């Protein structure tokens, strides 16, 4: 694969990754997001409903935490996870963990890392890990790594150092195992940058990892709440400055629109798309605008709309859901609210998704109130399409040097 940059504006990289996929004929624009999946399937969506979404990413994210327990089945299947899950047309990236469900800390050793599936814990040495990847055959996979330095409240320098040392050791082991396998050589290993919140260790991790023949870099340990990301942004800039320009930079655990823009400005290329899933799970729909060049009449209407929503959200109680434990943001509306009971508008006027073209807020409200499965399906379709549209607008804004406008628009809508 080959990453070529079209331009770099204020630290933001606009470009293309070419020669992707087993046949080397696919391309991916950056910045971009990856399609979030659970056990190899987009949440709530079958192939049919998934493919009504416009602007689907070229690459999907699989999680080892949901797939490791099916390792034997995949080994016997032989033809790889892409075909097994019915997504042979998408590029596939396999991360270690699911960004939505944090895994219990304290299970990384010098020799192994554990992931947590629904069937329980799966402990993996480098050998076992690579055997699993051999059965999965993704296009890219996150290397086995120690991400726990960033889990605790205050990382000690010792713990940060250990996370870097261990991750480099895992990386070298995995690279060696890759050399011994023709199948594994068709996948690219993504090196993982660790080091907790210690600048020294982060720089060491970046420099050392960059020396290895990895396909790209995963910036681990920057996830958390908006406040923690804020403090880590400085760290992020310093880290990406150490990385080669011609390899993609992924970040895990960051998916909110405002945070995405902050990270793009600090040299990140690829993001996970779990945020629209979290929004779906709390019965909400993304409504934030990313139209940074609306026509003048629209501007007035939209501004009034946004102001109304922001005012309302200030008065709204915070919502905690079991699966996501996240508060509602001001990028979304909560369809369970009584005011939507008789609202026959689509979720977002002008949205081209299946839900907005066919259904009303009142209908979604009814589905949520009656606990019907279709609520999740329709909201997921809308939220993904809206989110993918946001990423498209980022690329367009970068192309036409209007990212500042987009950033301001998003900032105004962030709570």
């Amino acid at each position, binding site marked *: 694969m080959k990453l070529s940059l079209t331009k770099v504006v204020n630290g933001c990289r606009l470009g293309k990754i070419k020669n992707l996929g087993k046949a080397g004929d696919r391309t991916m624009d950056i910045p971009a997001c990856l399609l979030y999946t659970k056990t190899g399937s987009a949440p*709530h969506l079958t192939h049919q409903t998934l493919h009504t979404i416009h602007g689907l990413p070229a690459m999907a994210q699989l999680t080892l935490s949901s797939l490791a327990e099916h390792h034997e089945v995949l080994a016997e299947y032989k033809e790889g996870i892409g075909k097994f899950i019915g997504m042979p047309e998408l590029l596939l990236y396999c991360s270690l963990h699911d960004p939505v469900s944090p895994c219990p800390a304290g299970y990384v050793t010098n020799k192994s890392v554990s992931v947590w599936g*629904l069937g329980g814990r799966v402990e993996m040495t480098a050998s076992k890990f690579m055997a699993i990847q051999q059965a999965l055959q993704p296009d890219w996979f996150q290397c086995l790594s120690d991400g726990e330095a960033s889990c605790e409240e205050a990382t000690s320098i010792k713990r940060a150092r250990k996370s870097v040392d261990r991750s480099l050791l895992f990386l070298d082991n995995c690279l060696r195992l890759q050399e011994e396998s023709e199948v594994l050589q068709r996948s690219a290993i993504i090196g993982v940058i660790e080091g907790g919140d210690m600048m020294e260790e982060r720089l060491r991790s970046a420099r050392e990892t960059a020396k290895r023949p990895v396909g790209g870099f995963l910036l681990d340990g920057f996830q958390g709440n908006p406040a923690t990301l804020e403090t880590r942004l400085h760290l992020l800039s310093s880290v990406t400055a150490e990385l080669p320009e011609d390899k993609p930079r992924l970040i895990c655990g960051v998916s909110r629109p405002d945070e995405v823009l902050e990270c793009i400005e600090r040299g990140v290329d690829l993001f996970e798309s779990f945020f629209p899933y979290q929004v779906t799970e709390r019965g909400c729909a993304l409504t934030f605008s990313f139209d940074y060049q609306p026509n003048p009449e629209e501007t007035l209407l939209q501004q009034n709309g946004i102001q109304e929503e922001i005012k309302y959200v200030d008065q709204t109680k915070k919502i905690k859901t079991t699966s996501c434990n996240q508060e509602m943001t001001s990028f979304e509306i909560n369809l369970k609210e009584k005011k939507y009971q008789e609202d026959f508008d689509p979720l977002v006027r002008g949205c081209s998704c299946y839900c907005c073209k*066919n259904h009303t807020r009142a209908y979604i409200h009814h589905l949520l109130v009656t606990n019907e499965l279709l609520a*999740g*399906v329709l909201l997921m379709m809308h939220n993904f399409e809206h989110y993918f549209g946001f990423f498209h607008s980022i690329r367009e804004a970068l192309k036409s040097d209007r990212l500042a406008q987009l950033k301001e628009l998003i900032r105004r809508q962030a709570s």
Partner: protein
Amino acid sequence: MAAAVSPTSLESAPRIMRLVAECSRSRARAGELRLPHGPVATPVFMPVGTQATMKGITAEQLDALGCRICLGNTYHLGLRPGPELIQKAHGLHGFMNWPHNLLTDSGGFQMVSLVSLSEVTEEGVRFRSPYDGDETLLSPEKSVEIQNALGSDIIMQLDDVVSSTVTGPRVEEAMYRSIRWLDRCIAAHQRPDKQNLFAIIQGGLDADLRTTCLEEMTKRDVPGFAIGGLSGGESKGQFWRMVALSTSRLPKDKPRYLMGVGYATDLVVCVALGCDMFDCVFPTRTARFGSALVPTGNLQLKKKQYEKDFRPIDNDCACPTCQKHSRAFLHALLHSDNTAALHHLTVHNIAYQLQLMSAVRASIVEKRFPDFVRDFMGTMYGDPTLCPTWATEALASVGITLS
């Protein structure tokens, strides 16, 4: 048992059913319903979309499967979101954005089966809402009023439903009351030009009572008849006899809707006995428990034996699930918390039911229905002689032998 001559209706009621073919041996018929939202080929299986949704599948998916009529439940929708809101949304069709036909039941069955503190009087069914505790009376007039607001293409009379396991004077009382309630529904119906009101034959498992009900109800000017009060806890032997009795005395030129019937074997047998329309929650409900319907029965896909089974659910099934996915993948997905697993199976099970009805219909049109039945039973039970006794007897009664 010789088939009795079926009377034609005495009045010139709207004829919504056109017969296309009849089996020369059994009572099976192939036809076409002409309904406000388009034609429907019969025999037809109607999936149940209780609360204005076919569970996890979209209207587009349901349409793509070839479904042209499905059910909504008046009881549920009458409570949430309520008829006023649905009317504002341009009826149930507008509210759920379903372009084809809808059939709504009266709410009577749910009333009695779901609500423990319901009370039936001559007025109607009095009950307490489980959501807000309010007391309501569902009368024949009220039921029709709600269904008028919903705007469904076929609406059902409010009937006095008793469980098929009940015996004694209550059954007779319910049968006569259902006739009186039918008349009240007919009188209250505001939109006979847009919505077809069906009567529901009651009488439990008593041949005399059922015959009386048939005689009386067929005097009324309705576009179609449902056979009710069955598909409860009764034995299959009693069940088929009541179905056969009913079809023998229902007019040939009007559709016969057998309520609550959905297992594949039951569908095939009851088509042979002369039924045209069926509904059942079974296929969609069982999908959500991980069970996939196949010509040999069903596959409990959560079981370990499917873990490494890389075949589709059914090689001959044309549904999107079978075209793209293996049993092994569905097994893995069913063991996850991704609801997509349930939707894959819902799509398949609806496809199975619709494909079955299509195949039944083609065999009637092509004059080979008895052979179709023999093949079907052979596949399902391994050998036609291993078919359940009740089914063998029922089929024999209309001239179809299995060996």
